[in-house]
């Protein structure tokens, strides 16, 4: 994979399979390194993108392996932004409550943690969902923040 430093942007298209998560993480890692982000920020971005893509695979495409996931990266000196697009079932981010781990424990719930992690690890998380067309999640982190 070559990083195009000139326009500081890149794109990866993969099918909605969990086996592609490692390729997605490597793709994000390459660009975050090129952007000069601190190591801790790179780890946080990689995990946030993994969580977003895992949610897409499990919930938008319901584990069907033929869905498409598009991951776009853009960065400048101030901000590193990852845009993730899918064409699966639309998702109402506002309806996902902040998890209460004690409650999850009692109710044997294991999902829902990913969204909380994404919001905790990134500086900004935005969802756009156009039912029947596409869903987009935009994850961004300031280059100099921790």
């Amino acid at each position: 994979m070559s990083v195009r430093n000139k326009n500081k942007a890149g794109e990866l298209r993969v099918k909605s399979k969990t086996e592609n998560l490692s390729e997605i993480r490597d793709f994000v890692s390459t660009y975050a390194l090129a952007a000069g982000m601190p190591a801790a920020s790179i780890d946080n971005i990689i995990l946030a993108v993994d969580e977003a893509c895992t949610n897409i695979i499990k919930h938008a495409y319901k584990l069907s392996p033929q869905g498409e996931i598009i991951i776009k990266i853009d960065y400048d000196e101030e901000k590193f932004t990852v845009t993730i697009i899918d064409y699966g079932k639309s998702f109402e981010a506002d309806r996902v409550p902040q998890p209460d781990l004690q409650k999850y424990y009692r109710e044997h719930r294991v999902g829902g943690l990913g969204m909380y992690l994404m919001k905790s690890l990134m500086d900004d998380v935005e969802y756009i969902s156009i039912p029947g067309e596409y869903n987009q999640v935009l994850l961004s982190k300031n280059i100099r923040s921790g």
Partner: protein
Amino acid sequence: MAEFSTSIKENGDIRIINLKGYLDAHTAPTLENNFTELINSNNFKIIVNFEDLAYISSAGLGVFMAYIENIRDNKGDIKLTNMSDKVFNIFDLLGFPLLYEIYKKEEEAIKKFSGS
């Protein structure tokens, strides 16, 4: 593809699962199988050693939540040890230290199982 593997060793009636590599939504079923096998063979005192674990996502953390109640109902526990700061931070962010015993070293968890 992400590399992940586990190995299990015995220490008296304690079973120790060593994790290695990348634990994500793709590799979590390997660890789920370990827990299922241990529970089916009535092994409820379980230590998970994270020393060689490079990465964990919420799908990996979910595995511990899925089995803990069954294990504690059988007078056992899952104790977690040898986490890197990076991995511990994710557990901490999600409040796991309130629900799980996390030790710096495997020996501490063995002592805790043996002593009490």
